[in-house]
């Protein structure tokens, strides 16, 4: 087996430049993470910028730096393009990670060097100027050869993997956190030194993962080339004879379309978690209506019920000329029925249906689980965090009912429930004779936007028990909650 590897070290930056050509020639850094506060990679001309910096640090290091967010969707599309193009040169291609592709280089008519060169040419054609390719006996060696080559193509001769890897640094191994430092302390700096060590003592010191390190260092990587999964799109379009504005007619048609699409899914033993309705109006206007399913399914009844809710939730359906139902099978397997706990399975199914209905009715950020987070802040508006509920797994429904009763112990005494008013509403200063308790001084966020509040519990003239505060900065009074 001969495996080729195409490495694009600046993949995220090249994808960004493909989307925004106007940034070409300027130093660029890509940020990622949920908060977009960590630099993931930077272009070679962004001098001094390294991964892990914050955008502020990076801009201070390199004036004129453009910081762009990582676009996973665009990267996915670019990887697909690259693999499509590579398939014209090799029968088996595989996208391992963003910017890392493997392909089968065995028995290619033009030879291995030509295959690697062709891969480079393809990458350059698609706009990935920083690319390197290599061919070797196994995937790890090919990857190391491509990474070491920096630019251009290289070929490791058959049977020469161990010799080629011997001089390369240990850092090329997929090391667990801390292992690199430990190898450094022991003076093990090359793959050849790792390969020369006996497996047993190595595993005794580093754990079983060290056997894998040694195997990779000896050129014994057995990572297979996985064939690309064909992504079939199931789509059906129904054009009406004339413009239709009655919802019943649209639903009747929709039912047939969905039955057809779900039959195709079920026939291929597939399920979907998203159905897209395209509503074609007069004048060529097309409206997309995505309907998300809480759990993957191929049930026509479920899909139709959710699509109907989504259509009914729209204020004005309008006149339609055609309707398209489009879905793609999802990667997740269909949910399995629990064999020995029918009640839990049915509860989960009912919850999945409920969540799907809610998501068809409301925006996904409007169906949430709200957790109190008193450790985060003492300000009422920051004492809770809302998380969107995506699937039944986000709610703890797996616990046993009796265990839940046991966990919670005796019933909590009734307590005045505070209804939060967010943002706080400004009120007139309360009467000095109003019954009240306080003040409770809260000072927070002095490092960004200082907050100084004196909180009181008081009864207003209408008899309502309120939580109010006086802002020490503007000396105004605000009501933030009502005890109800």
């Amino acid at each position: 087996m001969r495996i080729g590897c195409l490495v694009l070290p600046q993949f995220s930056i090249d994808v960004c430049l493909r989307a925004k050509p106007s940034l070409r020639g300027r130093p660029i850094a890509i940020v990622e993470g949920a908060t977009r506060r960590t630099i993931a990679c930077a272009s070679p001309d962004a001098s001094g910028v390294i991964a892990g910096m914050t955008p502020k640090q990076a801009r201070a290091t390199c004036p004129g730096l453009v910081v762009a967010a990582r676009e996973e969707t665009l990267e996915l599309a670019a990887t697909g393009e690259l693999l499509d193009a590579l398939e014209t040169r090799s029968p088996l291609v595989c996208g391992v990670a963003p910017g890392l592709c493997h392909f089968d280089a065995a028995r290619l008519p033009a030879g291995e060097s030509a295959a690697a060169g062709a891969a480079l040419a393809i990458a350059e054609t698609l706009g990935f100027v920083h690319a390197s390719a290599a061919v070797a006996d196994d995937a790890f060696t090919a990857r190391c050869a491509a990474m070491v080559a920096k630019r251009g193509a290289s070929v490791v001769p058959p049977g020469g993997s161990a010799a080629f890897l011997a001089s390369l640094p240990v850092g090329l191994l997929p090391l667990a956190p801390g292992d690199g430092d430990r190898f450094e302390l022991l003076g093990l700096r090359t793959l050849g030194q790792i390969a020369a060590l006996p497996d047993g003592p190595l595993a005794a010191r580093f754990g079983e993962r060290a056997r894998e390190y040694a195997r990779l260092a000896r050129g014994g990587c057995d990572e297979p080339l996985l064939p690309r999964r064909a992504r079939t799109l199931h789509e059906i379009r129904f054009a009406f004879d004339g413009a239709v504005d009655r919802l019943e007619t649209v639903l009747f048609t929709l039912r047939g379309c969905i039955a057809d699409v779900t039959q195709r899914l079920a026939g291929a033993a597939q399920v979907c978690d998203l159905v897209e309705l395209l509503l074609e109006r007069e004048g060529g206007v097309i409206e997309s209506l995505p309907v998300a399913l809480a759990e993957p399914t191929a049930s026509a009844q479920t899909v139709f019920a959710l699509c109907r809710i989504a259509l009914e939730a729209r204020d004005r359906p309008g006149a339609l000329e055609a309707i398209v139902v489009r879905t793609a099978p999802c990667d997740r397997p269909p949910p399995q029925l629990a064999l020995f706990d029918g009640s839990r399975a049915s509860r989960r199914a009912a919850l999945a249906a409920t969540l799907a209905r809610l998501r068809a009715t409301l925006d996904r950020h409007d169906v949430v689980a709200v957790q109190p987070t008193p450790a985060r802040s003492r300000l009422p508006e920051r004492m809770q965090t809302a998380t969107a509920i995506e699937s039944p797994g986000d709610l703890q429904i797996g616990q046993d009912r009796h265990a839940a009763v046991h966990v919670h112990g005796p019933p909590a005494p009734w307590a005045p429930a505070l209804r939060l008013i967010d943002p706080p509403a400004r009120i007139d200063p309360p009467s000095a004779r109003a019954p009240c308790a306080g003040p409770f001084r809260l000072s927070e966020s002095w490092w960004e936007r200082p907050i100084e509040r004196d909180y009181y519990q008081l009864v207003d003239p209408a008899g309502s028990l309120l939580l109010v505060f006086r802002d020490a900065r503007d000396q105004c009074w605000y009501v933030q909650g009502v005890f109800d």
Partner: protein
Amino acid sequence: MPPSAALSDLRASIGRRFGETANESLGAVLRVSGLERLLGPGGIPRGKLTEVFGARSSGKTALAFAALAACARAGELAAYVDCAASFFAPAAARAGVDVRRLIVARPASAAAARRCVDALVRDGACAAVVLDCGESFGGELRTQQCARLVAQAEKSGTALLVVSAGNLPAAASFATLRVRACGLQPLWQDGSDGGAQLLGATATFEVAKARMAVRRHVAEFALVLPDVVDTWPLCEGSAEAESRGLWRGESLDTSSEGERISRSSGASPAQALCRSLAREGPRAS
């Protein structure tokens, strides 16, 4: 024998024969701890619409949280449709609500709220659904819409609890049980330096409409603020507050106010309130 006594006897005999949990698994009602003083041996009926109405700061949300806490104790899922965007998770958790098993929906309009409740009661995934209408929902729930919701709730056995300002005629008409929250009476305790602190409140509820309880029955409930109230009323528990240095005003304010609070009481506010109520006894008519 009055119906409530007969029902009590029946429950007792079922409990003796099949165990105490058998009553709860009957599933006909959502048994809310303490609410039997108002509703007799019953509770909030499942599969029916119950309306809790009252003015602002009358205690209706406390009753809704108590119902959700009952769901949590039974290990059931519940949902809260928050039309007023006023749901406060720390208060709910303090009342015993399992917020990990609570779906909170925040519809943007009354129509969306209606569809949302319809989706929640249809499959029976939630044992109780609370529709918190806020104060600006009036007139948005029509008779036929309410009838549809009640029919769905009946089919799925979901307890549908509407918390309103009393301005929903359709809900009033279809409700099996209507409870009026008559108001909160704050309980203050004088401190040694003349200041006051809030111990809690008493809430009065009246049965406005019922098929299984005595109409016009009134009961008073103690709503206890936790012990940490003398420093900051929104923390979940004293242990946590103490661990965060929030105990008795130490980190809140070093001014004389904080010292006043720390000197003010020997017993905890909750203990003082319970003692006070024990002396007076619950008032029911």
